[in-house]
């Protein structure tokens, strides 16, 4: 089992580090709470309290975030293609056009169904 000893040691160090960090923070850190600290971290909207009478939960923030990810991934594939497109030939060009077309289908759906209107 010798190949596993380094992995086990690594796991033990990782666990010890996590336990130590949280423990030390809980013991030594000052506890001064304010409203901002209890908010959702960095992104999103307040999930509670819900709108009175069971109103709809606004999801426009998440729609924009999802669209961003779609185009983010698209560029992840586009950049390697752009770097080497002269060597890849017609096949890769057709593949890329098909790929972009399918991404735009999703975009057209979001646009037509009002996902891009903020209010």
């Amino acid at each position: 089992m010798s190949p596993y000893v380094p992995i086990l040691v690594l796991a033990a160090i990782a666990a010890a580090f996590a336990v130590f960090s949280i423990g030390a923070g809980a013991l030594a850190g000052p506890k001064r709470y304010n409203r901002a600290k209890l908010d959702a971290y960095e992104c999103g909207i307040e999930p509670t309290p819900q709108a009175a009478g069971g109103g709809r939960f606004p999801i426009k923030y998440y729609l924009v975030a999802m669209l961003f990810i779609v185009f983010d991934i698209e560029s992840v594939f586009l950049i390697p293609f752009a770097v080497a497109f002269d060597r890849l030939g017609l096949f890769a060009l057709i593949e890329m056009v098909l790929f972009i077309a399918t991404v735009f289908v999703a975009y057209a759906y979001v646009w037509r169904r009002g996902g891009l209107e903020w209010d």
Partner: protein
Amino acid sequence: MTPLLSVPVAADFVAPTVDYVAVLPMLIVFGAAIVAVLVEAFAPRASRFSIQVGVALVGLIAALGAVGKLIVDGTRVETAGIPAADGTLAASIVIDGPAIFLQGTILALSILAVLTMTERSTDGGAFTPQASAVPGSPGEGAARRVGLVQSEVFPLMLFSVGGMLMFPASNDLLTMFVALEVFSLPLYLLCGLARRRRLLSQEASLKYFLLGAFSSAFFLYGAALLYGFAESVRLADIAAAITGTGRPAVVGQDGLLLLGIALLAVGLLFKVGAAPFHIWTPDVYQGAPTPVTGFMAACTKVAAFGAMLRVVYVALPGARWDFMPALWGVAILTMVVGSVIAIVQTDVKRMLAYSSIAHAGFLMTGVLAIDKIGISGVLFYLFVYGFTTIGAFALVSLVRDAGEDGVGGEATHLSQWAGLGKRHPMAAGAFTLFLLAMAGIPLTSGFMGKYAVFSAAVSNGAWVLALIGVLASAVAAFFYVRVIVLMYFSEPSGSASVVATPGVGTLFAILLSVVVTIVLGIAPTVLFGPAEAASLFLP
């Protein structure tokens, strides 16, 4: 001086060879799904539903035709993807006998599932008018009055079918994982779209999503460990690495192999609903809209067992003595848990869910035969079980509360099925036939399916599994027969239920299921021949 960073000059790019005829069924289904999204975006609201039904049916039937062409051309072996010269991502799809058989089965079943989903003659259909409306809110009522309909059901279903076609045809673990996600994610959404009892439906959707994501992570981690073991995600390379004939001679890495197999198995066993990974099944089957439950119960099982067969028979035959005992345990536990817990169920959808768990156990005995006749037995079983399940759930969707203004929601409590045989002999008769088939009574297709897998197990020395399977079937027969007795020999006590008049789609689905169940019970060789001819996996 050597440069710190040297850009390697790329070798000449070789375009992958793709056999478009072999992958045509998948291309058609995915193409239809994309068209369906465009319909959702641009078609006028009033005609959207009917256009979607047309697109889905045309796409699925054309794909079935493409599978038919593959069958007529003979069971050719075709791989699509980058030529296999260079390792990891080579030949990611393989279209061999089992793949063609399973794709044909999935497409035939999903056509019936689409037909049950088109049912709108009773109570406006099974799906919510507006999924985003809060249950019980004024907005929901308004959407219902205007007659909105969530026609996204059909593109979601098509994407799911596409993934299911890809899952058992995947030739490497990464493609398999992508297929797993492509068919699972739409299913999570579909589960939450029920028209009645929406909170239950949304709960089912959330549970399925969380547990499904969890199990996908297990699958992915298992794939990563197997990659660490074999330095390839291709199933054939993993098989070669296990037997020691692989490119890198792997020595002393059995830990990676065993852990990888175990984690991969968790992901697959979750999808087929085998104990102890079955906990989601009853809740999800009960909460999901009934046509979706039928689709999920039939097609997911076919796709997931297809992938499990491929992994066990192509990638892992060399390691079978290591993982067989564990899978034996899972199979026995699944059969016992499914059959025994089903006895105490009082909801017909939950009872069918536990029955499907028991069937997963019976199917596993065929998988564990590790033999060609085991494969053909499982293929046959999946086909007949799929039709029986779709038919049974289509009937469940018809039995309704007798509301003051016509028909109400589905009457799924078993007590409401009492006396159904006297009031609605046709519906009760068809449901009786499906229950007998699930119980494995002779002259129904279910008997031949069970016979096929159990005899394969016996002839390969797994008679213990077959014995437990027969005993579990006997226990299971009790709760199937109990429902039949309830329908024919007892009087309704509380609120009576009525059978809604089915629309054309549901009626066709039920009738075809009845025909398949009877014909394959009397003349099983019609399907045994093709199943046997198809039962050869190619790496």
